[in-house]
């Protein structure tokens, strides 16, 4: 549906810049701040390297090799240090120390599952974090405490549930409640809300008919969105922090969503598509805003930073960085 007064819509702008030199498909992106607050972009590649890009010079500052040539699927930074968490398909989740120009693996968590599921992290205390990763059993999610690496919880669906493997995870803690929650998307297309401490499913809803590939949550509105291998985005809400409810679906033109992110100011949503395109929506209304057809291969990951930059990493080995609808 076209709404209102777009007689002459403006042409889509070009990327602000493009980062080349990852040398293989880009599977993970993460914005962070380096020393003296210089903005950095971290990218994880198919060949196991983590590149650190300076957004000022637009050049790679370092390439971290810690995953034995296996694909890096997830990147996250912890404020302490700063420390970098990188998840690879070599069954290692490495903890890197990036402070003062160092780039050494200081610790590693051995993972039990080689699936596609990306980890999720939640700050618990000043120096303590909770990390959710796929567990030993194919349908399990394991929750660890960092930095002690103690397994605090193992979330296993009921015997007859047949959810399949967890495909994407999101740890989350509501302001009103001390109990951490975990949103997990499963192989059968359903989404489950776990109470981590009670180890039980609070609510489950079948959003998709194909595996849930990615999900994003807007804690302020208690609403989220998920994408799967099909042509549909599902928007759902958390009623009273307890019950998941599908609010609506949004039809796409091509199937397959690899990743999706909501910008920190909750204005726009970006999806990474198997159709090589990044789609941008107005998050409140799900009105389509732009289709960024820059890449020539599957877009694997998208990321926003707080200043509104959008980065997309693709199988064509390029990372495009865009500035759309700058936050006011």
């Amino acid at each position, binding site marked *: 549906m076209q709404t*209102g007064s*777009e007689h002459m*819509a*403006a*042409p*889509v*702008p*070009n990327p602000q810049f493009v980062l080349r030199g990852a040398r293989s498909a880009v599977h993970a992106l993460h914005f962070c701040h380096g020393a003296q607050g210089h903005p950095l972009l971290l990218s994880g590649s198919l060949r196991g390297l983590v590149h650190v890009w300076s957004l000022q010079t637009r050049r790679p500052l370092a390439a971290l090799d810690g995953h034995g040539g296996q694909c890096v699927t997830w990147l996250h930074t912890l404020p302490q240090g700063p420390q970098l968490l990188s998840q690879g398909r070599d069954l290692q989740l490495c903890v890197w120390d990036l402070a003062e120009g160092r780039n050494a693996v200081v610790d590693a968590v051995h993972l039990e599952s080689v699936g596609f599921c990306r980890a999720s992290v939640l700050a618990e205390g000043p120096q303590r974090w909770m990390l959710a990763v796929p567990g030993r059993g194919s349908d399990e999610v394991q929750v660890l405490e960092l930095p002690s690496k103690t397994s605090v919880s193992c979330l296993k669906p009921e015997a007859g549930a047949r959810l399949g493997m967890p495909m994407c995870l999101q740890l989350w803690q509501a302001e009103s409640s001390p109990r951490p929650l975990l949103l997990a998307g499963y192989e059968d297309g359903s989404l489950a809300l776990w109470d981590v401490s009670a180890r039980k499913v609070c609510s489950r809803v079948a959003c998709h008919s194909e595996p849930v590939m990615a999900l994003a949550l807007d804690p302020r509105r208690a609403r989220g969105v998920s994408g799967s291998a099909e042509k549909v985005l599902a928007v759902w809400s958390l009623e009273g922090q307890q019950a998941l409810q599908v609010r609506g679906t949004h039809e796409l*033109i*091509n199937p397959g969503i690899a990743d999706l992110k909501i910008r920190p100011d909750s*204005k*726009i949503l970006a999806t990474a598509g198997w*159709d*090589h*395109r990044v789609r941008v929506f*107005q998050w*409140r209304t799900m*009105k*389509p*805003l*732009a*289709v960024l*057809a*820059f890449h*020539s291969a599957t877009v694997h990951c998208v990321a926003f930073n707080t200043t509104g930059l959008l980065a997309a990493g693709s199988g064509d080995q390029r990372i495009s960085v865009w500035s759309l*609808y700058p936050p006011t």
Partner: protein
Amino acid sequence: MDPVASAVRLAVQEAVHILSSSEDGGHIISTLQSLRRYLGETETQAPPEEQEEFSRTHFSTILRCLVGKLSPDWLDLLPDGQLEELWASFFLEGPADQAFLVLMESIEGAASPSFRLMKMARLLARFLSAGRMAAVMEGQCGQQAGPASRLLQETLLTRVVGLPDHLGNRLQRETLAAFFPQNYFPLLGEEVLRVLQAVVDSLRGGLDCSVSFLSQVLGKACVHGRQKEILGVLVPRLTVLTQGNCLWQRVCWRLVECVPDRAMEAVLKGLVEAAPGPEVLSRLLGNLVTKSKKAQFVMTQKLLFLQYSCSMPMLQSLLGYLAMDSQRRPLLVQALKELLETWGSSSAIRHTPLEQQRYVSKALLICLTHLGEAELRASRDELLASLMEGVKSRLDSSLPPVRRLGMIVAEVASARLHPEGPPLKFQYEEDELTREMLALAVPRPAADGPSEAGDDELVPYDMSGDGEQRGSKTPAYVRDCLEALTASEDWERWEEALRALEGLVLKSPAATREVSLELAKVLLHLEEKTAVAGFERLRQRALVAVTVTDPARVAEYLAVQFYALNYSLRQRMDILDVLALAAQELSRPGCLGKAAQRGSPGPGSQPSGAAVPAWKAVVEERVRRKTRRFCKQGSTGRAAAAGPNEFNAVAGYFFFPLLQRFDRPVVTFDLLGDDQLVLGRLAHTLGALMYLAVNTAVAVPMGKALLEFVWALRFHGDAYVRRGLLSAVSSVLLSVPAEWLLADLPDELLEARSWLADVAEQDADEDCRLLAVKALLLLEKLRDRLLPLSSP
């Protein structure tokens, strides 16, 4: 004789005598003072019956006498303008109608320019600003109109409404601002309101009153074209006054009812325009349309069918007014029937301007929104019959706007008339008009709710390039495409082949020439088997590419196929389009390719196409700035790439086969009969081919053949065909060298000239008239160019 009358007469006679002869200021003053007793303004009033006798019989005489005395010397008989003040008071305080008439009379009688004229004009301006005009009109409201006073009323009416004209004529450039129509008529409006107020008051007091003089004033002012000025003042006030006030409403209704028939149209049109909506119009008019035949005619016939000048808000007001009362609704149903009949009449479709057809269609849609289910059902059969008739005639038309009107109205009307049936749905492009019309078709919302607050609306970028992602089955060779298009059951591959074909053909002309005829045949017969986006365009582009690559054979084949059996009209029109596009490409290589790149959606949606030019422009701009040119005058604009006109060699293959058999119908194809749409397209295509053949050797025989073709069809009934013929004539004039034209075709040109002159004057279709004028201008230019050569 009545003693009162004779006493007054004596006094007046004496006063007149003194006024006309005396040079003594004091004497004159005392005489005037004594006369003022009869006006009832002084302490020592005359008895009422004497006052009445004076104002009925003698007032005008006195005023005329006073006007006659007016001169600078006379006024100076007493110092400080005392005499003038007293003199003026007679005009400003006495019976207003007589004073007004004498004022106007003396202004007309005064020499121009003169002292007296200016004095009287200023006095009239004072008269107006003192609000005496209300008194003039009020005087006419209480009276019973006898034969004598009707004449007087008419004189008064002419003077009241014609005041700006009279004064303008007399005073020329000296006229005062108060007499400008744009100032006078609003004032008149104010005065009418004051009189209406007085009428309402006296009605409240139980006194009978007549507003017919006011109606006449209003009517006459509107007939003079002063609706905006006078109604602009009246309507907003009346809107407020009539709200919830029955007495005011009745007075207002009466005011409009009493408007003479000849002024009814002007008044009603002004009211419809000035009223902010149907509710107000309904308050102002009441059930006027059921009481006055003339008003009914104006509202339901004149403004709907005989004119098409009302704006959409006016039309909404008008039809909304008809819908607001149960007594008026039958008129609305009747109007709908007649609108539908007119809308569907094939004669009206052919002979009325498009603008009027739009107007009728819009009125029709508005009517539909106002009518209820039951009312429509009651006359459903009749309405459906005219709708079907109309849809048929409209879809038959060869003018796209006429067809579009048919589709839109048919969709909306059938949904209302036959809600239980499956909805009718046509395919048409959305534009300004369709949006406007569809918006008219939904009932007007009561009030817009405030839109949901929240973050501000973000404006989407252009997403037209977003399409389905294609697989990797793209064929790499022309022959592969051919095979995929003919034999493949793999629809994805079929689509890919269709998409890739144009590029492949242009890339490998040699390979294409080997299979060009085969390819043309396949493409011409290709059917849309999957819902591939832009099928028509892809097929057309591919066919154009093939024709351009191997013009002689393919163009001849296509042109011959145009008259062959067993083609649909669509295919025949495709042939024409392809021939025209290919000819354009051949005569101006490159211009089509660029257009296609810009326009084609979906395939190649990489933004590089859009990005490169911007980048290129930046670089070129930089180079331009950094480069110093020694030749300052050198043109900086790039010259168009020069190249041979490839159309030259092959124009005949495109053109002549198309002309061969237009007058010989075959079983499924009758150009001179029902298939006039194709005939029109043929005429346009021939014109285009002629135009593109400029500077070619074959242009002369082409021009000759084309003029013959035009001559044979020049009285065709269809506007689209005539347009094609006219543009073909222009093409001939543009493309054939002037010397050849005059040498080879002098008679044809003379004949064409008189025909063009006829069309330019008389054709019903605006575009035809325009095209004929253009062709005539070309002919003129031709003559001007040749005359200097031949005349010396």
